[in-house]
C-alpha cells in the first residue's frame, strides 16, 4: 500500500534520512525501530508532507504521494498519530475526534467509527466534554489514536506512542494497537523506540540508525538478532 523508495531528506543542514526504502503491504503491521535521533519522525513528517524530501519517491496505493498537498493526504486515507500526541488542547475530547473525522470518509461512517473508538477506549466516551489539554498522558495518547481512527483510514501511522508514558500504560496502548490490527485488519505503520513491544506484534520490521535502514526482516529474525541491541547502545562499529 505504501512504498517508500530511496528517500533522502535533509533540513536545517542536517542529513536526516539517506536512501531509505521500505514498504507497507496492505493489511500488514510494519514497525520501524531505532535509537533516538535516527530519523524516525522525519520519515513520518515526510510522508505527511510537513517536510519535503531531497530525492526519492513515496507512492500510496500506486499514486505518487509527493504530488499531493500535505492537507490532502489525510483525505486519501492516511492517518497520522503524531509524536507527542499533539492533541488540540483547547478543544474537547469529542471535538478532537470530530476533527479527526474531517475528511469525507470519516464523516460518512461517523456513527460506526465513533462507536468503535468508544469500544476500544471507553474513557474517551466518559470524558467526551473535557478539554483535551487536561487529560493525562495516557489518555491523550488514546485520544490521538482515536482521532487517527476517526477518518476511517486505510493506513494508520503511529509515531512513538509510548513516549513519555509509564510502562504499564504503554503496554496497554500497544495492546490496543494490536487489537486494532487484528480485529479491523487495518494497515499499520508503527515507529517506536521500545523494540520488543513494537516488533512482537508486527509482521515486518525495519531498524533505522542515523538515517539509514541497517536491518530488516520478519520479527522473529530481528528479535533474535543482537545487532539490534548493539545498534541502540552504540556498540556497533558502523
Amino acid at each position, binding site marked *: 500500500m505504501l512504498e517508500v523508495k530511496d528517500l533522502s531528506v535533509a533540513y536545517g543542514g*542536517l542529513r536526516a534520512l539517506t536512501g531509505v526504502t521500505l514498504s507497507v503491504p496492505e493489511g500488514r503491521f510494519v514497525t520501524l525501530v531505532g535509537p*533516538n*535521533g535516527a530519523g524516525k519522525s522525519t520519515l513520518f513528517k515526510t510522508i505527511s508532507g510537513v517536510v519535503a524530501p531531497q530525492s526519492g519517491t513515496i507512492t500510496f496505493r500506486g499514486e505518487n504521494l509527493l504530488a499531493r498537498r500535505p492537507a490532502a493526504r489525510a483525505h486519501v486515507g492516511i492517518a497520522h498519530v503524531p509524536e507527542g500526541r499533539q492533541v488540540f488542547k483547547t478543544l474537547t475530547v469529542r471535538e478532537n475526534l470530530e476533527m479527526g473525522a474531517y475528511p469525507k470518509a470519516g464523516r460518512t461512517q461517523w456513527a460506526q467509527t465513533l462507536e468503535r473508538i468508544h469500544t476500544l477506549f471507553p474513557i474517551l466516551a466518559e470524558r467526551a466534554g473535557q478539554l483535551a489539554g487536561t487529560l493525562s498522558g495516557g489518555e491523550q495518547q488514546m485520544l490521538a489514536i482515536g482521532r487517527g481512527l476517526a477518518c476511517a483510514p486505510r493506513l494508520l501511522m503511529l509515531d512513538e506512542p509510548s*513516549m*513519555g508514558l509509564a510502562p504499564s500504560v504503554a503496554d496497554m496502548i500497544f495492546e490496543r494497537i494490536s487489537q486494532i490490527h487484528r480485529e479491523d485488519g487495518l494497515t499499520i505503520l508503527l515507529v517506536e523506540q521500545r*523494540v520488543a*513491544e*513494537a516488533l512482537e506484534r508486527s509482521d515486518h520490521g525495519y531498524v533505522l540508525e542515523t538515517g539509514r535502514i541497517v536491518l530488516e526482516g520478519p520479527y522473529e529474525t530481528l528479535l533474535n538478532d543482537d545487532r539490534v*541491541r548493539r545498534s541502540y547502545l*552504540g556498540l556497533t562499529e558502523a
Partner: protein
Amino acid sequence: MRQGAGPHLRRSLAVLAGLTVAYLVLTLFVKNSYYQLILTLVPVWALFGVSWNILSGYGGQLSFGHASFFGIGAYTVTLAVVYWRLSPWLGIPLGMVLGGLAAIAIGTPTFRLRGHYFALSMLAYPLAILYVLQYLGFQEVSIPMHRDHPVAFMEFSEPRVYTVIAMALLAGGVAVSLIIENSRFGLALLAIRQNELAAEAAGINARQWKMRSLIVSGMMAAAAGGFYARVLLVVTPDSVFGMLTSAQAVVVTLFGGVASVWGPLIGAAVLVPLAETLQAELGTYLPGIQGVVYGIAIIGIMLLSPDGLFWTIRDRWFRPSGTEPIPDVSGRPAPARPAVAAPGTPLLQVENLSRSFGGLKAVSEVSFSIAQGEILGIIGPNGAGKTTLFNVLNGVLTADAGSAMLAGQQMLGCKTFEVCRMGVGRTFQVVRSFPRLPVLDNVVVGAYGAGMSDREAIASAVRALRQVGLDGQAGVAAGQLTNKQLRLMELARALAGQPRLLLLDETLAGLGREECDSVLAVLAQLRQQGMTICIIEHTMHAMMRLADRFVVLDHGRVLATGLPRAVVEDASVIEAYLGKKWLARQSA
C-alpha cells in the same frame, strides 16, 4: 572595542565626513526655500532613525512609541523658550537629559515585557502624553522670535545654517552609533536580539544592556525632536507625539537597513524627499499621500528585503571577500580562572534536583557528581528530562527542590548570566550565529560575559578558536561556515568565557561520521587540557568513545551511573531503551 574596530571606525568616520561635506555642498546649490527645508529635515529624521536603530535595530526590541522621546525633546525646547526664555542651544541638551530620564521611567516597567507586548506598550506612552497635553491645553505652542538676540536663540536669517546644525547633530549621532556598533555594547545588543536566552547563557546581563540602549536612544531622539521644534517653530501634540511620527522612525530605518548605521541615512535620504515632494505636489488632491508612501515602502521592504536596502545591496554587490587578519595575542597573558575545587572533591555536585511542570515530573530527585577534568555523558531515551536538567542548572528554569554546587558555590537560584559568570559555559541545540559578522566577533561575545576587558576578551576568543581548530576561519563571516564548523564555533563561544564546566547539549546531532570524529577529537583534547565537560547526546557510539562515565535518565529519574561499558549492560538501562520484553527475551 571589537577586533578591527580601529581601522573600521576610521574608515566609517571618513565616509561620514565625506558624506557630510558632499551634503553641505549640495545645499549651496539649492535655492528654493521649500527644498531647503527638506534638506534640513532629512538629517533630522535620519537622526531619529539612528536613535530608533540603537534600541530596535541592534537590540531587536521593537518600539512603536519612539515619539515619546522625540516629543519630549520638542516640547522641552519650545516650552523652555516660551516660559523661561531659555535658548534652544541649552534647551536641546536639557531635552536630552529629560529624554534620558524618560527612558529610565519607561524602560523600568516595560522591559519586563517581550515581543509584541513590548511594542504595543511602547505605543501607549506617546499617545498617553498626547492626550494629557491636549487636555492641559497645549494644543499649539509656537516659539516666539527674538529679534534682539537672534543667534543666541538659534535664529538665523540664512536657512542653510539650520542644515549645517542638523548635519552636525546627525554626525554626532552617527558617531555615537558607530562607536556602539564597534564595541561590546553593539555585540551584546546583537546577541540579545539574536537569542536573548543564549545571550544570557553567555553571561550577558540583558536587562542592563537593554536599558542602556534605551537611554542612549531616548537622548538622541530628544535631540532630534528638540531641533525639529526649532526649525518648524510650531509644535502640536499630534505632530511630535503622534503615530505618524513614531512610524517615521520605524519606516526610515527598516527601509534603509536595520542594525546598520547607514540604514537610517539611506532610508531618510530616499523616503523623506519623496514623501515631502509628493505631499507638496499632490497634497491638495491626495492628502495623506505621505502616509501611503511610507506604508507601501514598509510592506514592500518587509516582503522583498526584510533586512532593508543597505543589507540587500551589500550582500549582492559588496560581499566582503578577504578575511581580516587574526590579531597576535601571544603577548597577552591568559586571564586564568581562580583555582577550582580542592582535589578529591567533585567540581559539580547535584543533589536531589527536582522540577515539575504541572503534574509532570520532568526531573525527579536527580543526584550525581562530576569530578574535575571528567567527561560525563547524560543519556536516556527521548523525553527523559535531560535538557530540562541543563535548563535548571543553567538558571533558565528554577528548581522545585534540591541543590547544585559548583566548587562549593550554590548554582540554583541564580540568574542565567550569573551562572555563566560563575564559570559555566553552555551550548544549545540550535546554533544561532551572527551570519554577517566574522567568526571572531561571534565568539568574543562569550568572553564579554565573563567580565574581561576588551583586549583580554579578544585574546580569550582567539585562544578559544585555536582550541577548537577554527583559528583559520576567525575572519570569515559566520554565514559561510559548514554545520560542523558552526558547532565548533558555538563551542568556542562557550570556551571564550573561560568556564570551569561546559554543558554541551547535543553538539553532535546530525553530523556525519567524519565530522563527528573531528568534533570528538576536539572534545578529547579539551579534556586533556583539564576542562570538565557534561554532555547530552544521543549518538551512542560517539559517547561510548568519549565519556568517562554515564548518567542514564529515564522519566526524569536517574536509572544508573557508572562506566559506559557497565551501564550499557545494566538491565534497567536496556529495559529503558529497548523495552521490558526485549530484556525478558534476552534473559530467557
